[in-house]
């Protein structure tokens, strides 16, 4: 079966050890996690995980079943890229001289819609949010000038369709 990128949205309790429990489900099947992010969600006290993996649909269905089986998982969903609005964020640390001396780099920053977070004598920090391809394009463009440090976040995504998680929670806590 064809493998493709899937984004998982998992709603869970906020408990120690749950990361281990969820990542073990992938590790056991020798599936590499492309990115993983954990944050608060729209519901107070509930954690939302965004995990990106490249697998077949059959695999992802079974994985969702295994994740939902965990006691502290409230609900798990999987989506294709088309079903979500997703973003990544990255930071570049670059020598300040370049910013002042090289016109080209200024153009790149302008065209890429990147934001300068801070500037000092030695370095400046550039922040760019967007899809992975946009982030990668900027990376390639800046690489020739010398990047002192680079970091990119995991994907975060919201779905176009409603996730009925609040209704579900109301039902179980009622």
């Amino acid at each position, binding site marked *: 079966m064809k493998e493709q990128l899937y984004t998982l949205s998992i709603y*869970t*309790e*906020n408990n*120690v*050890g749950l990361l*281990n*429990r969820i990542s*073990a489900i992938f590790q*056991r099947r020798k599936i590499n996690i492309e990115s993983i992010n954990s944050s608060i969600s729209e*519901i*107070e*006290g*509930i954690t939302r995980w965004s995990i990106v993996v490249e697998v077949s649909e059959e695999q992802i*269905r*079974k994985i969702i*079943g*295994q994740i*939902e*089986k965990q*006691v*502290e*998982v*409230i609900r798990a969903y999987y989506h294709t890229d088309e079903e979500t609005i997703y973003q990544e964020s990255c930071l570049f640390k670059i020598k300040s001289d370049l910013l002042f001396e090289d016109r080209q780099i200024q153009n790149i920053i302008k065209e890429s819609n990147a934001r300068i977070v801070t500037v000092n004598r030695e370095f400046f920090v550039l922040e760019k949010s967007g899809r992975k391809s946009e982030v990668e394009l900027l990376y390639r463009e800046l690489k020739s000038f010398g990047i002192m440090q680079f970091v990119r976040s995991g994907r975060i995504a919201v779905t176009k369709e409603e996730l009925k998680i*609040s209704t579900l*929670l*109301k039902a*179980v*806590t009622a």
Partner: protein
Amino acid sequence: MNFNLTMEAQLVHKKSTEASTEHLSGSEAVVKCLLAEGVDTLYGYPGGAIMPVYDELYKYQGKLNHVLTRHEQGATHSAQGYARISGKVGVCIATSGPGATNLITGIADAQIDSTPMVCITGQVGSHLLGSDAFQETDIIGISTPVTKWNYQITKASEIPEVFAKAFYIAKSGRPGPVLIDITKDAQFEMFDFEYKKCTKVRSYKPVPNTEYDSIEKAALLINQAQKPLVVWGQGVILSEAEEQLKAVIEKAGIPSAWTILGASAIPTEHPLNVGMVGMHGNYAPNKLTNECDVLIAIGMRFDDRVTGNLETYAKQAKVIHFEIDPAEVDKNVKTNVAVLGDAKRSLEKLLPLLEQKSHLEWLNQFEKLYQIEYNKVIANDLHPTKKGLTMGEVLKEINTQTKGQAAIVSDVGQHQMIACRYANFNVTKSNITSGGLGTMGFALPAAIGAKMAAPQRDVVAIIGDGGYQMTIQELGTIFQTGVAVKIVVLNNDFLGMVRQWQQLFFDKRYASTELVNPDFITIAKGYHIEAKRVTKREELATSVKEMMDHDGAFFLEVCVEKEGNVFPMIPTGASVSDIRLE
């Protein structure tokens, strides 16, 4: 909407009228929790980080029976045996570090065989966590993939809620093992204790909703079927749906086969019981899996040892799957109708929708294939004419002596397959064996737990000479507690199943499978256990009788033929249709 995430909020308590507060230490609270959950026996081994709890066990010894096993692995298997025969939650306890890691095999076994178990481990003081302190190990991290749930307690005040939750999770839905790790300071800490049973965890749905529609669809398929076949598993036993299953198959006249863990749910001699499926199961149900038109799976999970090659498994059949765990549906075999929920309730709802039928011609096909298996395999196993003793005739003798009323606890290997194939089961929850994990060393300690949970019953452990030596030290537990288990070692001086594979698939290169064994009789006698060795057929019946008649524990070694094989057999990766008789 405010969702408060404290432990209290996760537990929706039943109103308890008797709830009163006492000022206790964490360790005394642990004992109080166990008593509140109705625990009467627990299995374990003391050590530094769990000593405060042991001190309380000492004080409460009249109310709570602690059984000192000779190894923590033995404690887990005893707890499993206890749970499997009684349906109650098995409990075991160990110290931190090696005590905790020694539990892992039993926990993994309980996880894959859905056995309700609560394991308690001591942990170093919370100020030492992560410092590589003496006997510190990350047991939460280690046990995560093999537990249904686990939790580390660092404050005494967490104890009541966590224990209540642990017992609820272990037993409800698809059961499984839960581990609670308690730091030593939490055991000493004083707090106001109050216990309330847990009846709900908001993120956990133990039994999925059953769509009535799915039951109607299942009934329609069954009513239309010409050649229906039921394959039931342990789910029937776990939900105590034995009577419901019997009513369903009798009404619809369905030949019914069982997985290894489903054994004993319906008596062996029931006319619709057509035997065991799987690698060493019976010829007819394996062959006819690929000829039935509707396959009704009940509380089973299509393990690879049951299905053989999935590409050629029951492809002609419509598949109905009665299952409590949604993750099992379509995991291995695609279903046409999935009936989620508890087997007992689902079968109760199914029964009135079924038409009275008897598929005599179809049932006759099972009989015909049984005759082939009987002539080729069973006759030689049960009524051998050659000199060497067979494992099968030992089982036949045990059946005779126990009238099929005993609980059979088997280990892993050839003797296990023989025990499951030939034991007569007239009582449910009577086949206690390590199915999913295949843990050698399981039987001896599991038999201890089983006999303690059901002291009125005969408990016979059937063990190979290999597996016996993996937990042989539990003879010490038997001697110390006086538990009257019957131990039968079928000794062929080989790791028989591996040797069989070496013979069939590795050109008889018997790599490290021949055992040079000690004098098992002397060892048993060293533990003051009555012991006898049988080497001749003439001695078998009287020796088995002597064992069963004996008041206490008894060790019987039967020296069987060295290179006997277990057939039928579906070679790994082959189709169930390609089951071999020789």
